[in-house]
């Protein structure tokens, strides 16, 4: 048996893969959080609930309306994004001129309400959601067996992260978003509808969370609590990457997923806390995060 650092290579690569999968979700979720925080200056505590809603839209859509997985990848982000836009327009936007704590408390309350509602109707246990036939099965590589669905998740998440990064860094709309992040009232004085931009940004962030939820549905079960389980780690990712840094959120998401996976190989007892240990170290050495700007 081939060994690497005294560990069988299958175990090593297996955990590397698990780490990359988790990292894919961390990256997608922290990207949405970073986009929302960058422009709205709101720490979106409802992000985990929006991820959960995405999974539920896929699950319920399949069960009641026969919406297949591929359509759910589009429908769920649109539904949850529209819901996010409604929440932003009617409630969250009233809090922008207040202390940031109000936005945080509001989204936290929203998360609890959404989770509680889903628990009331669907209970706390998970519901299965199967991957489409085209993505089931596995590829046998010389050193390991690679489940096709997991490979798909990694590829899809990478593509979406890169697309969002390109949207923000390379397009006219992205330049407007970046400018509005720096000085919203000046951008609005140029004739740009900044309140609308804020609504769309919140919808984009919520939609990204929902997309992650659909991708997660066949791997983890669809449960009202799936969001609160992952969101704490995602906040740690955002802190390590640097609040509001788009590239930082993406890269840190994958890195910490892999770090978590590899810790399972070498020191399994620490795997649940390794991300938080890294967060503590980063906060001591570089309080603005790995990709954040000081001050």
């Amino acid at each position: 048996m081939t060994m690497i650092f005294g560990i069988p290579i299958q175990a090593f690569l297996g955990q590397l893969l698990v780490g990359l999968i988790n990292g894919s979700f961390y990256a997608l979720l922290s990207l949405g959080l970073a986009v929302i925080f960058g422009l709205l200056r709101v720490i979106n505590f409802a992000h985990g609930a929006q991820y959960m809603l995405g999974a539920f839209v896929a699950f319920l859509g399949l069960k009641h309306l026969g919406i297949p997985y591929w359509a759910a990848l589009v429908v769920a982000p649109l539904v949850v994004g529209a819901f996010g836009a409604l929440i932003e327009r009617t409630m969250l936007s009233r809090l922008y001129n207040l202390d940031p704590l109000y936005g945080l408390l509001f989204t936290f309350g929203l998360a609890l309400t959404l989770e509680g509602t889903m628990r009331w109707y669907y209970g706390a246990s998970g519901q299965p959601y199967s991957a489409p036939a085209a993505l089931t099965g596995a590829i046998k590589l010389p050193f390991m067996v690679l489940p096709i669905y997991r490979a798909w998740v990694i590829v899809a998440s990478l593509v979406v992260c890169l697309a969002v990064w390109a949207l923000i860094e390379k397009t006219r709309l992205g330049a407007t978003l970046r400018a509005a992040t720096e000085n919203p009232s000046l951008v609005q004085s140029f004739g740009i509808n900044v309140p609308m931009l804020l609504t769309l940004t919140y919808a984009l962030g919520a939609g990204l969370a929902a997309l992650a939820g659909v991708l997660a549905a066949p791997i983890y079960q669809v449960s009202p609590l799936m969001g609160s389980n992952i969101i704490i780690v995602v906040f740690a990712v955002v802190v390590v990457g640097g609040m509001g840094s788009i590239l930082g959120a993406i890269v840190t998401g994958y890195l910490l997923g892999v770090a978590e996976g590899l810790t399972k190989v070498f020191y399994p007892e620490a795997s649940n806390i390794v991300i938080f240990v890294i967060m503590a170290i980063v906060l001591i050495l570089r309080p603005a995060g790995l990709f954040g700007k000081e001050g």
Partner: protein
Amino acid sequence: MTALLDVRDLNAWYGESHVLHGVNLQVDEGETVCILGRNGMGKTTTLRSIMGLVRKRSGAIGFAGRDLMTMPLHHVARAGLGFVPEERGIFATLSVDENLMLPPVVAPGGMTLDEIHALFPNLKERRNSPGTKLSGGEQQMLAMARILRTGARCLLLDEPTEGLAPVIIEAIGNVLRELKKRGMTVVLVEQNFRFASRVADRFYVMDHGVMTHEFPVGELDARMDMLHETLGV
């Protein structure tokens, strides 16, 4: 003929602090009007209130026959007003080109990119640099150029010469004279009245939140004693 920009009894507040106490200002189409006054007298607040950036205000602001008081901030530019803030407002995360292309075109008749590059050659050379890597003078040029692209009819310019070298100030003066030839209306806030006297048609003097004097450029010499007293120069 009614003025293009007609401000009457404008009051404005920053929080509890009452800054403008009934400002009256009329600017005709094609005119360059300069507001003189010491620091803290309300010149910048006047421009920011006209633009709608200061929302706590009362009075009347008309522009091209439209009421600006009830207009949302993002509609004011579309009515034809362009604002160049004192701090210039160049975006650090945007390249020079991105800064230049940021404000949407609101009306036909704005400058083309070629015209802008002819007027401000530095902006062409440095088009891919981050906006805030430009010198102070270049940032001022960029802040003006991006509004000139939009087709705005009236430019609100807040202390464009502040902190700049004489040769740059001269260049900005040339730009303003070029704009006047094209029929642009300009409201200029300045402390440097030697500069202002070369570009303005008419002056307002501002003191403690009101306009205390108003006179055409021809009377500048006769008003020197008053200006020295009010401006402390």
